[in-house]
């Protein structure tokens, strides 16, 4: 296989293919960096341009756009507290606080290198273990999903900041917002108040932009005392780069995020957002300085970005090896494969080896191009920091409004965005953390569907959650996580008491 891949590099190293990868990456990064425009949208827009291309060139461009889109979301997440894509939501937790401390350049560097390293190893795993990993992923059914979601919920404690009570309240609010719409099993309407447009629920991107971007615009409108003005002017110190020792310090977290990203990405239906949440939680749990998470930790940025970028390689595993799309983006890629006359699945590796191995080679080339495109994007978007804030934030408000309009050309979505903006502003003023709200909102639909499906399968017997070794493993991990979190919180409380004395 190794020889075949080396030979396929010869196919991919042509001007047309390299240009397709570079342009796909650039287009994806641009789309990822504009709030509201997602990687999926970028890929969907590239598809019509690939009709006349060979399948290999077409997929080189499409996968470039996918990688660029996932990475690009981190840039506005760090610079203006607005995740460009939902997967970059976790990057805001530490990226933006770093930018406020004058370390935006460092944060963007770490985000880029975490993305590159995670992406590279995920691609290697995809090449060598695609078929065997895909077979393992098929062992995950609703009970296993449910246990993963229960495990992921322990993250609420990790991102609650100073008050765990407020974090849990915020998570409950997010949980309740996620139940708006038709219920996933019987389609009973919940909290729609007779509004037809609420039947499909609340769009994640609308909520994200409202909660993070619009609330930030409202916060920035407040008259600021001088010390805070100084912090904002720190944003312009963008040339501060991450050193090799800082990158090396984050390497264990990046590798852990890569493994988690590949494993979870290979399970259809979970997606990169949950992966980055899980990896962030895991990084905080094992960090020597968990108290810095949420306040501007380099490790936090590395965990978020490595987790979501490794998922790119992970989600391609079930797509190529089994023909199962893990999320909406890979569903679009599946459509593109079919447009080009290819049927994904185990047979693809035998009947279309001349397509599969050059695609693997193109993924490696795209990973090697990512630092170049990333550095260019950082330079371009860093210009944002030179814009006076009384011009920047109105522009952000207008761009976000248009981004939300672009999602579904719905004016109800725009009103929802403003609603969440005001909610986010009020919660921030009352010192409620927004991250648990987001976690509740993202995990509720996945968890509810998995738990209800499991109970439907077992005729209402909860014993189904204790039957498979995978479920038991995640339940044990949940118990360990809770014990560790209680220990960390007690330790932090003791430390702060000692400091007060």
């Amino acid at each position, binding site marked *: 296989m190794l020889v075949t891949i080396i030979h396929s590099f010869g196919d991919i190293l042509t001007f047309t293919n390299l240009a397709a990868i570079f342009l796909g990456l650039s287009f994806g990064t641009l789309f990822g960096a504009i709030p509201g425009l997602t990687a999926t949208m970028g890929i969907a827009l590239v598809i019509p341009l690939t009709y006349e291309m060979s399948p290999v060139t077409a997929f080189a461009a499409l996968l470039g756009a996918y990688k660029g889109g996932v990475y690009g979301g981190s840039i506005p997440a760090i610079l203006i507290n607005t995740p460009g894509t939902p997967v970059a939501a976790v990057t805001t937790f530490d990226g933006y606080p770093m930018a406020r401390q004058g370390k935006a350049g460092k944060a963007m560097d770490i985000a880029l290198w975490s993305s590159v390293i995670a992406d590279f190893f995920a691609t290697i795993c995809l090449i060598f273990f695609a078929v065997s990993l895909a077979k393992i992923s098929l062992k995950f059914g609703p009970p296993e999903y449910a246990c993963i979601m229960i495990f992921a919920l322990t993250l609420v404690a990790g991102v609650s900041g100073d008050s765990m009570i407020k974090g849990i309240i915020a998570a409950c609010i997010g949980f309740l917002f996620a*139940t708006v719409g038709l*219920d996933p*099993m019987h389609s009973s309407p919940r909290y729609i108040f007779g509004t037809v447009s609420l039947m499909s629920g609340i769009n994640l991107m609308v909520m994200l932009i409202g909660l993070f971007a619009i609330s930030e615009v409202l916060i920035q*409108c407040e008259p600021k005392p001088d010390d805070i003005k100084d912090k904002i002017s720190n944003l312009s110190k963008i040339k501060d780069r991450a050193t090799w020792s800082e990158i090396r310090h984050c390497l264990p977290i990046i590798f852990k995020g890569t493994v988690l990203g590949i494993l979870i990405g290979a399970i259809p239906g979970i997606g990169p957002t949950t992966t980055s949440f899980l990896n962030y939680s895991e990084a905080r749990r094992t960090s020597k300085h968990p108290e810095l998470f949420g306040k501007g930790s380099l490790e936090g940025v590395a965990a978020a970005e490595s987790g979501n970028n490794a998922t790119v390689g992970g989600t391609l595993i079930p797509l190529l090896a089994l023909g199962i799309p893990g999320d909406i983006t890979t569903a679009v890629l599946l459509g593109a494969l079919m447009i080009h006359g290819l049927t994904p699945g185990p047979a693809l590796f035998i009947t279309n080896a001349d397509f599969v191995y050059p695609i693997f080679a193109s993924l490696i080339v795209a990973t090697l191009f990512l630092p170049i495109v990333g550095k260019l994007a950082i330079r371009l978007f860093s210009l944002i920091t030179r814009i006076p804030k009384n011009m920047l934030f109105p522009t952000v*408000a207008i761009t976000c409004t248009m981004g939300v309009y672009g999602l579904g050309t719905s004016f109800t979505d725009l009103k929802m965005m403003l609603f969440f903006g005001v909610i986010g502003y009020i919660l921030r003023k009352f010192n409620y953390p927004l991250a648990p709200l987001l976690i509740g909102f993202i995990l509720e639909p996945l968890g509810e569907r998995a738990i209800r499906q499991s109970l439907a399968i077992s005729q209402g017997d909860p014993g189904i959650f204790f039957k498979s070794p995978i479920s038991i493993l995640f339940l044990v991990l949940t118990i360990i996580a809770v014990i560790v979190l209680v220990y960390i919180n007690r330790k932090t409380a003791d430390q702060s008491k000692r400091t007060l004395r």
Partner: protein
Amino acid sequence: MMKDLNDLISSGFFLLLSVGLFFFITPNFVEVYNNMGLRASFFPNIATIILFIFSLILLLNSGLRVVKAKRVSKDFSNFNLKQIRPFFMALCILIYIILFEKTGFLFSTPIALIGMMLLMGQRHIRLLAVNTAIVLGFLYFVFAYVLNLNLH
């Protein structure tokens, strides 16, 4: 002191919200009865109960701290109009959404953008004009040409 008062107000609001949801809104869900799983109201009720419990804890904690404190006073003498600027910004965004719906992108965007920049204190006419032109041109190109959206 101010933090405790904020906690008291917010926890009181969430307590009322959870009671309202649990007793008045969630019971009105259309339920499909079966013996194979959970009903549509199960997860909203769980979230509401947890919300109630933790809001009550926060209310009691912050309430006790407020009662123990010697005085509750707030100085309103330094109030100025700039402090309610976020309210006006939210209003500007709402007006923009309504104008966009009624009149389209090209008419509403320059008005809203200039209005917001003026609200945030930008008074330099050349900067106002240049930024408006760049933002309008870029967004129109991306959304009307690349994404092929109808902007009226």
